């Protein structure tokens, strides 16, 4: 697996613990395989450890569960004042990402509002597609519960592409 320079905040990484709470055994196994007993919310972890945990969830449990990890991450997140609609939350994704991930090789999230009720969001980040789709869906659902997220046909990080682009409609 390619290596990236950076760090990832425990508070975000803990989402996978919450998402897999119904299976202690699987959870413990994944943590142990990464040399961890627990995840400290205030600690910064090596970006590659965080990536590996997410990719392990995808490979060993499944992509829907990894998508659930992304949803869970947003469920637990607090949004600052002013972020009170879907347009605002989509535009704030990159800033929120930088509060949870730091370093020279963390990439970026680019949001383009296309119309009153549509946007394109590109995740040029080193995380698996299902996780980013979950994060995006979680954000969208906060303010538009029936928002539809569709993956663009152009490239996917899971197939060695540089980014995943999603079309959001609400």
């Amino acid at each position, binding site marked *: 697996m390619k290596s990236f320079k950076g760090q990832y905040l425990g508070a975000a990484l803990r989402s996978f613990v919450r998402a*897999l709470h*119904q*299976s202690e*055994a*699987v959870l413990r*196994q994944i943590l*142990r*395989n990464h040399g961890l007993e627990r995840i400290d919310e205030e600690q910064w972890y090596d970006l590659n450890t965080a990536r590996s945990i997410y990719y392990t969830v995808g*490979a*060993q*449990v*499944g992509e*829907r*569960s990894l*998508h*659930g990890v992304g*949803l869970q991450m947003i469920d637990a997140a607090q949004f600052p004042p002013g972020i009170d609609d879907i347009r605002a939350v989509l535009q704030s994704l990159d800033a929120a990402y930088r509060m949870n991930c730091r370093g020279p090789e963390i990439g970026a999230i680019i949001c383009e509002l296309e119309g009153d*009720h549509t946007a394109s969001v590109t995740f040029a980040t080193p995380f698996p597609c299902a996780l980013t789709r979950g994060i995006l869906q979680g954000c969208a659902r906060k303010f538009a*519960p*029936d*928002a*539809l997220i569709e993956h663009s046909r152009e490239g996917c990080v899971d197939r060695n592409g540089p980014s995943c682009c999603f079309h959001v*409609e*609400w």
Partner: protein
Amino acid sequence: MRDELSALLEQAAPAIVREVAGALSQRSGSVYRARGVVATGRAVGDLVAAMVADVAAGNGKQLRAGLRDILSRLSEEAISFRDLRLVQEALRTDLFTRIEAADLPLAALRAVEDWFHELTHQCSLYLLAQREHLIDRQASEIEVKLAEQRQLSIPIVPIYEGVLLAPLVGNLDAYRAQVLTTRVLEVVGRSHARLLLLDVSGVPKVDQEVVDHLLRTTRAVRLLGCQTVLIGIAAELARTMAGLDLDTSELVVRRSLQEGLSHALATLGLAVARR
């Protein structure tokens, strides 16, 4: 035009609600019949109120803001495609009949048509989101259960003092092989076993990574003072191992569980005698 249309809609709203809700609550197998005419009337009333406000404002704001709540109040479970189609058809038929009878200009028809277009769009998003949510949740639950089963389906049982048997059945993927390593080391470490009979006769297919895991498990187990005996290697597994150019000289291999047991007893200095 818009004032004329709004006036018509406001004036006709109570009759529209009464007639549409009455017709819908007669439809067999529908959520409207299940919930009854009063609840259906409330839902249709809310929809019509949103339409009156949106047509007057020339947008679909009220519909967008309220549709989900309207449908949720009508039913805790997701509304079906048919139910959504029924309410759209009933409302559309009623409204256009009134608009045509009032001889309003084409623009009035267009304004109402735009609102119905938005209603169809929002109903589609609602339906897709509901289905997607349901599939995500169910698939995620299945995935976790399968992952757990993969962990639990590796029994390691003591068959004699100091002898453990681990019968592996089914496909052994990298994840399961990893789980096997962890489980074996746990059990061997706890039980201080001297011999581990790893029966792979029930494993139809393996790849290089899995063979690598098996060999690593064997080595790790030896560090705990326990010997691993690989039992029942199938032709394909033998082919995979032979093709990998691995050092298998340290492996103790027996063809069957019976031979494995004999080896274990011999190692422990025991023998089975007929009485």
